[in-house]
């Protein structure tokens, strides 16, 4: 049991907010940047479009990391019995997944844009793009791991 002031749910709500908002920013940047790259290279090589959807899917997965943590935090929000400890732990969890997702989304977007444009000109680059995208995606996963570990603290 810890102290239970009235304002501790504010920090929990801010945790859920930052989890969703920042990972959505990263996912939106990733989708937009690689989407414009796909639209540009599709004119030259329409048969490579479906293969090039990979960066868009990975950006969507980053948004899902944020949704998972936000839903977990929102499920634990209560008016009474919500200690300051829980509030700050949830804030930390939300910030960790959110800001990592923002950074990972930026990386996925930039790499996806350059990757699909390069793959259109040189198809052997596809495997290299996948490898770099995996490393970028795993940054968001690190944030998710820390968030889940924090969330499960008693």
């Amino acid at each position: 049991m810890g102290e239970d002031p009235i304002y501790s749910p504010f920090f929990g709500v801010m945790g859920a907010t930052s989890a969703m908002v920042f990972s959505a920013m990263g996912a939106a940047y990733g989708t937009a940047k690689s989407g414009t790259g796909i639209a540009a290279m599709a004119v030259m090589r329409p048969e490579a479009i479906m293969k090039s959807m990979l960066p868009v899917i990975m950006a969507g997965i980053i948004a899902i990391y944020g949704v998972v943590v936000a839903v977990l935090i929102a499920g634990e929000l209560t008016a009474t019995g919500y200690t300051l400890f829980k509030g700050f732990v949830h804030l930390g969890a939300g910030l960790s997944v959110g800001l990592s997702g923002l950074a990972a989304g930026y990386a996925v977007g930039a790499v996806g844009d350059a990757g699909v444009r390069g793959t259109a000109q040189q198809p052997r680059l596809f495997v290299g793009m996948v490898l770099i995208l995996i490393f970028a995606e795993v940054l968001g996963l690190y944030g998710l791991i820390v968030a889940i570990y924090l969330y499960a603290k008693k």
Partner: protein
Amino acid sequence: MMSVASNTASTPYSYNSYAKYVYGYIASLIAFILTVIVFYYVLTGRGERIDFGWFLMETSPYMWASIGVGLAVSLSVVGAALGIYTTGVSIIGGGVKAPRIKTKNLISVIFCEAVAIYGLIIAIVLTGQIVIYTPELADSDYTVKSRNWFSGYAMFGAGIITGVVNLVCGICVGQVGSGAALSDAADPTLFVKVLIIEIFGSAIGLFGLIVSVLVISKAKMGDKA
């Protein structure tokens, strides 16, 4: 005359070359004022007066709820507007040489508009949750007060989630829609494939809607404990 002309050019250390740091100036001015205020309180022995918890307790939950409602709809509309601006300009530009694209690419504009509708829905749902509570009852009964204060915070959070997520989603859908319009102008078979990317972008806005509905489902204002 020569020296005045070369000073108004963008050479380094000319009068105008410092203008690009204006955001840095504003941010450092705010940080300086805040530092002076905090040091004043701390050094005169009143450090506990700087209390974020006091601020959260004293402000009315109506303020948090109303700011949440306002931001939910306004930021969503800003996102939708930025999206429509990017997409619409590209549709018109590409339609100069390929006027056939103008009807099919209205789908991209509709995707952006849907983002604004998400914000509108959440704002209406949030407004329906704002209920009057009697202040005397709140002061006497701890459960009533904590429930109302919690609802205020939850509505603020739900509004921020919806607003900012729809803002970035609208910008994203607009960018991809612009690419879709231009590749459609080049080759009509490409439009449907690039539309798939727009659907991924639209899904981000839906995630924000789901999470904010989840957050708001816990909130209940009013006089009941």
